[in-house]
């Protein structure tokens, strides 16, 4: 990741910028909406990239400390993926097969069970109930610090 950021700096014009969009280090939430009301919330059991995010953040911190980039702006936003059923969301993200078969992988089986339970709750909530995966993300604008040609 550090090498990738070094390459980004090389490919950027000196007055250019890097936009980095990443989820925050927190599990996304599975939510059921009935109209504008949230009637159910549960952490997404398929969240398995916390370590990847930590490593990406560590790499970014490293290149900033070396003076390759300067953070110019930062903001956060809510990122939602809506589906008319939990199985649709599961299939869309490809975290586990959305069929009813028992999985030999315990982690995948747990994911399927949670999504099946969420779908039961959604159906019990009546017509118009939707499920959504709610992620919180941050966006950075970073400028290359081209004056610093010899990183320390």
């Amino acid at each position, binding site marked *: 990741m550090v090498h*990738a950021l070094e390459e980004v700096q090389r490919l950027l014009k000196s007055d250019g910028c890097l936009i980095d969009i990443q989820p925050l280090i927190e599990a996304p939430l599975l939510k059921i909406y009935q109209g504008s009301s949230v009637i159910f919330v549960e952490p997404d059991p398929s969240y398995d990239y916390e370590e990847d995010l930590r490593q990406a953040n560590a790499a970014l911190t490293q290149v900033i400390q070396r003076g390759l980039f300067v953070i110019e*702006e930062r903001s956060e936003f*809510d990122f939602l993926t809506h*589906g008319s059923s939990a199985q649709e969301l599961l299939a869309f993200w490809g975290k586990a097969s959305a069929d009813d078969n028992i999985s030999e992988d315990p982690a995948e089986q747990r994911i399927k069970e949670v999504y099946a339970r969420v779908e039961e709750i959604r159906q019990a909530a009546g017509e118009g109930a939707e499920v959504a995966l709610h992620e919180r993300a941050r966006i950075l604008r970073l400028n290359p610090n081209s004056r610093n040609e010899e990183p320390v």
Partner: protein
Amino acid sequence: MTVSVDPENNETRALLALLDFSARRVLEIGCGDGRLTWRYADSAEHVMAIDPKADAITRARENLPKELKGRVEFHQFTFEDFSATGEPSSFDSIIFSWSF
């Protein structure tokens, strides 16, 4: 399938608040099926969008609006492969899009 990604356009608003894409040459890393690309490409001078997933790039090319042809290119590349041949100082903006 009726899945809708960011129908609230929260990501687009956050992106456009940080950057005016007018007349910019953009590299988007991790473009997927072009979901985010479409939302800023109309104002950019040129967009090179890459992703290692062949099926995603195929979908992006299929969905490329006629008016953006010639200005937006989708290629199946890892960033490592792309940068190995990339010219220095060739982009005004680079977007790392959920590609940690």
